[in-house]
């Protein structure tokens, strides 16, 4: 009978992503508990265990905290060797909703979320409401605090909506699962939770097919406008950056352009972690980024010309209904 190896040996490379995420979650839960911090474990194996999503490969651990607790938890985890990933904040077009930390040993990173995109209200209030309805979810032999089933479904739906317009199939899958679990009441219960979490408008594309008539008001507010702006960027950082550049005062624009072009190697590597080491790797990553940036920029310009919309924003649209999937949002 063979015995066992310690974590310091190369055998630990056998550790897959799911066990790694589960064990890292155990570290986070332990450190947070000792410090009296509240942590909600989201996405990945937690949502799979809740039945919100199908099993799929995850490469990071996602956690959501009260926004004022994020720094303290990151500092606590720093004592265990977790480090902030070098962040190229010069090119970030929107408010940072999360920080990513990594460890030299563990294969997964931790995404520490200050707030969840799509919850269009005060982040602290949203967290309190999520925490109030939390449940314990077992992943293997361990149990973690997660949002309740309904909240997790809303959160997952927002994640998919934000991922772009190519995920209707995934949204349909979430709807099918929540209908299977909650039955006819699924739409009402999810809408009620979405309302509590400030996500009724942002989750409308998810809620409408569940029989909920969510209409977007004439003046939906700046948070919704920001959300639509993010959607319009479709996760394309260049497009999002162009939108910011367009809205920025004229005197700030040259600096923004310089920031975007003259990235430090560490910034570029944070954006493209798969880049090969060394100068050649940096050059390849820079070229790839420049090529992709140019392509996205051309697409954006073509799209804008086709529409002929000029500087129109969502807040002055005559049709203020949240665009459905497949519709253009600008």
């Amino acid at each position, binding site marked *: *009978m*063979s*015995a*066992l*190896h*310690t*974590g*310091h*040996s190369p*055998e*630990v490379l*056998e*550790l*897959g992503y799911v*066990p790694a995420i*589960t*064990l890292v979650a*155990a*570290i986070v839960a*332990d450190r947070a508990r000792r410090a009296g911090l509240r942590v909600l474990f989201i996405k990945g194996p937690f949502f799979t265990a809740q039945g919100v999503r199908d099993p799929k490969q995850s490469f990071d651990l996602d956690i959501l905290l009260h926004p004022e607790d994020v720094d303290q938890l990151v500092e606590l985890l720093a*004592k*265990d*060797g977790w480090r902030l990933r070098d962040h190229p904040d010069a090119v970030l077009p929107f408010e940072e909703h999360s920080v990513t930390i990594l460890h030299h*040993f563990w294969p997964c990173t931790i995404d520490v979320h200050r707030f969840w995109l799509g919850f269009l209200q005060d982040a602290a209030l949203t967290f309190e409401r999520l925490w109030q309805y939390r449940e314990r979810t077992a992943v*293997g*032999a*361990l149990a973690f605090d997660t949002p309740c089933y309904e909240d997790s479904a809303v959160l997952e739906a927002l994640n998919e909506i934000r991922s772009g317009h190519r995920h209707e199939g995934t949204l349909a899958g979430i709807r099918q699962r929540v209908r299977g679990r909650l039955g006819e009441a699924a739409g009402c219960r999810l809408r009620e939770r979405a309302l509590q979490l400030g996500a009724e408008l942002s989750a409308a594309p998810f809620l409408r097919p569940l029989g909920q008539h969510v209409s977007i008001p004439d003046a939906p507010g700046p948070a919704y406008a920001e959300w639509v702006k993010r959607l319009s960027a479709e996760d394309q950082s260049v497009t999002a950056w162009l939108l910011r550049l367009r809205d920025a005062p004229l005197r700030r624009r040259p600096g923004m352009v310089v920031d975007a072009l003259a990235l430090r190697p560490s910034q570029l590597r944070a954006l493209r972690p798969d880049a090969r080491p060394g100068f050649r790797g940096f050059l390849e990553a820079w070229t790839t980024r420049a090529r992709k940036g140019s392509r996205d920029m051309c697409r954006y310009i073509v799209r804008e010309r086709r529409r002929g919309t000029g500087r129109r924003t969502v807040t002055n649209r005559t049709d203020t209904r949240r665009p459905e999937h497949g519709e253009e949002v600008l």
Partner: protein
Amino acid sequence: MVREEVWSIRSGVAHVVEPEASFALPLDDPDPLPHVIEGGAHLVWQLLAAGPLATANIVEELVDTTGAARAVLDEQVPLILDQLSRLRLVDRAMPGRGLPGDGPAGGGVPGTRSGARTPR
């Protein structure tokens, strides 16, 4: 009557049981790293993951599930448990003295508390 040690996974040890191996993480360590538990130790760990067990019960279960010779298991299982104990992954307690987290000590039928299995 011989009082036999009962073994349990230490509180404060997070673990994941996979088909080929188990991974145990002592959370009390600074910068904890996982121990990879394979082979016979993995089989023992799987049993302990279900609840505290006496050495004899572990041997008994393994004889049933693996078909290995009892004499070999009688020799190997205590060695594995000792190794796990030295790594501070499992705790031992005498029946009647209570296991960590079991509440008030004393009394009770050996091997039956906190989900422990009864000897056959």
